[in-house]
């Protein structure tokens, strides 16, 4: 009898019961204190097992970071990304995670760093039938995705928009690896805040000052339309892959803003090499864009982008969207916001790139960039 009860209790905790069985079982628990006591007992056993797993994993993280990372870590985020990536690599089941941006980036760095490491604590396997449904996509995607607000912000309003205390600020360097850790680097200066006075009912999760990446495209004289007409650019190295990668010996240390630089290290032949010869470099003396991720009271995520040129500033809000690793590019004096290719817009044929409007004081809607040349220029 006891075995039967135990079996039932374990089936309950293992989520093997149907809804009806669960209801019946709850009724039994209510009416039988002995079974209830046994049920609580097993609940504690399982909780204890989980706590052992948690403590063990924590110890492992601590140990790993101490021995291999901590000395060079001045940036906790890098530590976090690296630790998570390392754990991900330790578990085959999480490999699908590597398909997503940040983890992949961090994982690649760790792969390089820990190639010789034989310290994976956890069981490894090369194949998995376990699938995760992790999406590298925006949440709460709705058709209002493209709603754009360009609001003139009077100089005195910027004071209202200041971050309420306590404020945190710290350099946030995110690293991406293209196989050559020394190829390029760029810094995002970032700060996270607890709230914003202007709409303090919202939860601002991150705020970063983004330095635009300048893509310089020499164009033949008097041929301003070349950007529209050229179909292929043929840049070999993805800029995005080289956008945030520190020198190898300084992994974990945020490079200085003034040092931010992106270099393209190789190029495939272009279709019309006489017309376009792309060069990419950062622009150091440029106004930064303030970019916030925030949630409203419904838990819906939005992105707000501001160009803080006084006395007016452009404010762009992308509603119901959460872009991972947003980047801003400048091409011929025009700024573009790139939220990546893998957002929910992908299924609708969207590029994930939006032109940041120059005009102020109006409200309008924008669409994602469709110009293939611009897209290629940014993405390649």
């Amino acid at each position, binding site marked *: 009898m006891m075995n039967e009860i135990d079996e039932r209790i374990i089936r309950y905790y293992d989520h093997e019961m149907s809804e009806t069985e669960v209801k019946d079982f709850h009724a039994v628990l209510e009416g039988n204190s002995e079974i209830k*006591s046994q049920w609580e007992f097993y609940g*504690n056993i399982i909780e204890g097992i989980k*706590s052992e*797993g948690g403590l063990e994993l924590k110890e492992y993280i601590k140990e790993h970071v101490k021995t291999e990372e901590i000395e060079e870590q001045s940036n906790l985020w890098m530590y*976090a990304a690296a630790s998570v990536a390392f754990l991900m690599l330790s578990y085959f089941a999480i490999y699908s995670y590597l398909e997503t941006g940040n983890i992949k980036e961090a994982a690649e760095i760790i792969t390089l760093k820990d190639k010789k490491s034989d310290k994976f604590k956890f069981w490894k396997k090369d194949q998995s039938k376990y699938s995760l449904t992790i999406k590298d996509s925006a949440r709460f995607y709705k058709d209002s995705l493209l709603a754009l607000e360009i609001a003139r912000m009077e100089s005195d309003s910027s004071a209202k928009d200041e971050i309420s205390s306590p404020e945190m600020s710290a350099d*946030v360097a995110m690293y991406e690896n293209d196989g050559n850790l020394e190829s390029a680097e760029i810094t995002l200066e970032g700060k996270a805040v607890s709230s914003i006075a202007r709409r303090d009912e919202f939860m601002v999760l991150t705020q970063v000052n983004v330095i635009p990446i300048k893509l310089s495209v020499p164009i033949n004289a008097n041929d301003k339309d070349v950007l529209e007409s050229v179909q292929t650019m043929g840049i070999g190295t993805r800029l995005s892959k080289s956008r945030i990668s520190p020198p190898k010996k300084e992994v974990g240390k945020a490079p200085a803003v003034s040092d931010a630089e992106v270099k393209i290290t190789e190029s495939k032949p272009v279709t019309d090499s006489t017309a376009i010869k792309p060069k990419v470099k950062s622009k150091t003396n440029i106004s930064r864009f303030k970019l916030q991720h925030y949630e409203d009271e419904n838990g819906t995520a939005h992105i707000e982008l501001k160009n803080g040129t006084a006395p007016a500033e452009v404010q762009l809000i992308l509603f119901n969207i959460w872009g991972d*690793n947003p980047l801003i590019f400048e091409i011929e004096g025009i700024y573009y916001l790139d939220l990546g290719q893998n957002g929910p817009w992908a299924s609708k044929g969207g590029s994930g790139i939006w032109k940041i409007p120059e005009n102020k004081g109006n409200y309008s809607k924008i669409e994602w960039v469709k110009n293939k040349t611009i897209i290629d220029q940014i993405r390649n």
Partner: protein
Amino acid sequence: MVRKYIMENSGTSDDAEDLLQDALVILWQNARKPNFELHAKISTYLFAIVRNQWLKNLEKRKRENGSLEIAGEGPSTFLDDSRMDLKIVRDHLNDMGELCRKILLMYYFDGFDMQTIAEANELANANTAKSKKYQCLKDLGNTIKSKYHKNDFLS
């Protein structure tokens, strides 16, 4: 960022590190759930976990001490290892055979399915793994029951 946030909110650098480690464990556990979806950057997600954990911690300290100005008190995070009943389970789990320990951790902490557990432990199939897991859990329970009164054990 975490460090700065924690230190500006009555915490120490050690608290920050501890919380971040906890956050990684939470992330891992959440990521193992089949319906888990990551909608934000890892750093954002981790920061949200850290902040929530820290706020809970502050609340707890406030309740216990009536003040946030606490010096010399170690961090108390979600991985609270002070509960005696859980410690008893951990101790007995660690005294079990390696196979049982591994199966129970893989199932209850890591969330692996039985087929995976079977393959990992070179068991014949998922049913064998399931039976073994059941037996291990029962053994663990029986061992604890034999040493402690059930009512003492229950928290």
